[in-house]
């Protein structure tokens, strides 16, 4: 099991998702990371495509018996993830 924390440091929105997705892919597929923490410090907004990126990351890690954890989520984002029941798929921690 190898663990890594990634900190996007900006809103997870459609315009940045392609690059974000590439870095996530590099970590999981190429580096073999199976325990990934996404640190949402400084992230104020997640749009629908951004939500998709989280779910896709979870799906990718699940295939490799890995685990996604979202840490330091703002109150808004934490509550959004909980309301949308995403906490049933991966762990979400409020900042």
């Amino acid at each position, binding site marked *: 099991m190898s663990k890594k924390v990634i900190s996007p440091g900006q809103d997870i929105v459609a315009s940045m998702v392609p690059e974000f997705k590439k870095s996530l892919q590099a970590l999981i597929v190429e580096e073999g990371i199976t325990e990934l923490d996404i640190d949402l410090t400084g992230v104020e907004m997640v749009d629908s495509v951004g939500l998709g990126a989280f779910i*896709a990351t979870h799906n*990718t890690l699940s295939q490799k018996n890995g685990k996604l954890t979202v840490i330091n989520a703002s109150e808004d984002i934490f509550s959004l993830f909980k309301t949308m029941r995403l906490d049933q798929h991966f762990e979400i921690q409020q900042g």
Partner: protein
Amino acid sequence: MLIDRETTNIYIEETNQSLAEIEKNLLVLESMGANIDMSLAKRVYHAMHVIRNGASLLSFSQLKELSQKIENVLGLICNARLTPNPEVINILLQGVDRLYQLIDRIHSNEDMDIDEQSVLLTGLTSAVLPDDIKQSVTEVRDIPVPDSKHVFRIAEFNLIQVLEQGKNLYILIYDLIKDVQEKNDTPLNFVQLIQQHGEMIDSFFDIQSIGTLEEKNFSSEMPYFVLFASTLSYEQLSESMGIQPHQIKEVNSEIADLIQPKTRSKLSSAISSHHPKTDKKKRMDILNDLFCELKFAMDCFSCNMDNKLSVGEIRLQSVINSLQDLLNFENSVLASRILWKIGRNIRDHAYQSNIQAKLELQCGLIMMDHRILNRLIEPVTAIITKMTRLVQTNTPIQICLNMTKNEGMIQMTISFSNPQILTQETHLDYLVEEKKIQALCANLTQKFELKTGLIIAIRIPQNVFIVPGYGVVIDDHNYIVPRFNVKDCLTNLDPLMWREKNSSIAFNHKEQDIPVVGISNTDLSYYQNKKSLMVCEVGNQRFGLAADSTETFELDAICQPLSKQLDSNPFIAANCLLDDGQIAFVPDMGFLANKIS
């Protein structure tokens, strides 16, 4: 949060008020036994329903779950399926106590489980239901999502509640890419819009169809399904939420066997959009602080003028008096609105000790400062508990707490309804409670006569001078520093940061020297042993007050102004007693500020 912090604060304030009302009414329901007042039971049910709706709207999942379970039990009482006997009320009260705790920690990230209360409430619900409904509490119903392999799995009892509230049940079908992203909307707004129209009972993404990071068609679709309860009709929902009819599936028929839906009625929203009471407590705190500062300043003035006040000072004094009247009025509540809690405590004590004890509260229309009333609860409960222990087990005990008012003093007497219940002269040992009562500027006495039995009397001024402040220890003496003057409290002081210049002392904090004033004149080594520094402000004068205690405690000190009497000790403005009987002084912050300048 999906809803802003101000709305959450309104919810907290209103829920705390509602819970107090529910708790009080549960005790009344318990005393009624089988002959319950149905309108009262329905009021309690409705109050819990509003709490549950609010929790749902604000996505407080544990609050929602627990209040739902309490609501289920209350619903059974309203439908006369369950008698509110002491066992039932005890379980409900435990649930209410947990709700208080959940509300208290709403802003913290602390996890609290509700397992114990949930098990008891669910057990209660299922135990009293007829066999055909009993299973609904634990039975889960699958509600299939049309044209999909997915299902929602929901406890049947919760679905019955939805129908009994006259709501319709829908499945809303979305694609977050098409319905949100391509409409330049955000998921946050999208969820808020749904919640404004009803209750999201459950929801899920079809996460498999979203795929993995390696999928080429990543983010082309994001199917999202919501199981939704609303009083709105199919057409109204479609119109007001701006979604296509094919995205809404009414599923009442799927659960029609559980119960026939009743007449639709619109339920009022749990949260109002504007509430003038939002920050009343904060405003009152500020007003209380300002009053104390003004009163101390005026005491200082009049002390220097040999009681001969100028016209200006007389005008100021009249402002202070009027302000005091206003504050007394604003802080006053009906004593019964707070002291009923003693009845709850005695009820719990009786239940746990397996004795029959009941408190009869006779407060009439007496009004008192809520801060005094709240501090009376603990010692008076302890005194009454001790009284119950004087009586032989198995003897039913009724204790009467009577309040009367006479010339600005409130007399509270506590006695057995049956004076002959004690056959020989008995006195209570209440040293600990007496200190707590004396800290309220009140006194406690007891007398025993064969005719009247044991009578405990508390005499307490109706209006007192309350100084909200922080308690610290300086040179082995207790001090209460008025909250208005305290701007910060520094701890873990670095001894090297103390400065001495021209026989005055300062502490260097964040590259700024804070002038420090001592209660007595001392040298640098005296300060280097101090553990904390309260940063205070009087007017535009900022200074530090060094203390020996590392932790300050906040309290509403019931004070006696002293400045006029203590010419020889000009830095003390007032004194008070603490709950443990120790004396504490309120420093004259103006005098200390003058020492600096």
